């Protein structure tokens, strides 16, 4: 059997929920950021696969992927700036320790 859309969607679904699992279990901000990157990448695979197999006459899925990659880069940079600033203030990047605004 050849590789169709279904197989690629299986891979991206599995990748998405691996990312969700990591996001729920990790308590360290940098590893949570890595889980978010996995989730965004699974979305990118979805866009590319749909563009390739269902709408080969258009390029819109490709453009969405390009913009998602751009925004993910901006998001990672801002998140890491915030993490480094938090580390300077609290000497820890565990989310359980960052509870000043909670109470």
């Amino acid at each position, binding site marked *: *059997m*050849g*590789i169709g859309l*279904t197989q690629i969607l*299986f*891979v991206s*679904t*599995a*990748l998405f*929920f*691996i990312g*969700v*699992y*990591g996001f*729920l*279990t990790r*308590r*360290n901000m*940098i*590893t949570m*950021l*890595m*889980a978010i*990157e*996995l989730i965004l*990448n699974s979305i*990118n*695979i979805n866009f*590319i*696969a749909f*563009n*390739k*197999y*269902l709408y*080969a*006459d*258009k*390029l*819109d899925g*490709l*453009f969405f992927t*390009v*913009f998602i*990659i*751009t*925004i*993910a*880069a*901006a*998001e*990672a*940079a*801002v998140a890491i*700036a*915030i*993490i*480094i600033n938090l*580390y*300077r*203030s609290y000497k820890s990047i565990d989310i359980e320790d960052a509870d000043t605004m909670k109470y």
Partner: protein
Amino acid sequence: MNASTVIFYILAALILGGAILSVTSRKIFRAAIYLLFSLIGIAGLYFYLNYEFIAAVQVIVYVGGIVVLIIFSVFLTHESGKDMKKPALGRALFSFLAAAFACALTMSLIMKQQFIPTPNAAIEPSVNNIGTQMLSTTQFGYILPFEVVSMLLLAAMIGCIVIAIKVKAPENIIAAGHELKVPDDINEEIEEQINASL
């Protein structure tokens, strides 16, 4: 089972294996390296689907940019040989169950779904076509999102500098939870200076 199928399954194993190790590894530096392998596998998947431009962007931005940024931030914030805490058993169990059931539900929906491809002729996703449509101002052009994203990148860059810059002002010390220490003899010093100036 032909070569194309075998290559796809190798790529899928690389992506998913890297992702699983990345979210379960207890050494943070290793987690970042496994993430790198997973992202390279995704770039390979784009090559497999003949989207060379996106594959190149993936390698340049994710592998060359974001993972390096993550590794630098690991070095800035961790003693990177140390193991991280294990997640609590209950949280790990319930997260796994939630992810597994949602994954099974989504996969069963995908299996039931009939996908109908478009009958129109395919466009080659070449750099020529991509560039022409991205910068076109006609109805299906992407010039407006392109410009908006460039503003967003500028804003993110300035925001990063403002957030991460090291300020040595007193309010920063107060924000860090320390008392601002004023020397006891500061009033005497000021009085002496006033007297001297008089």
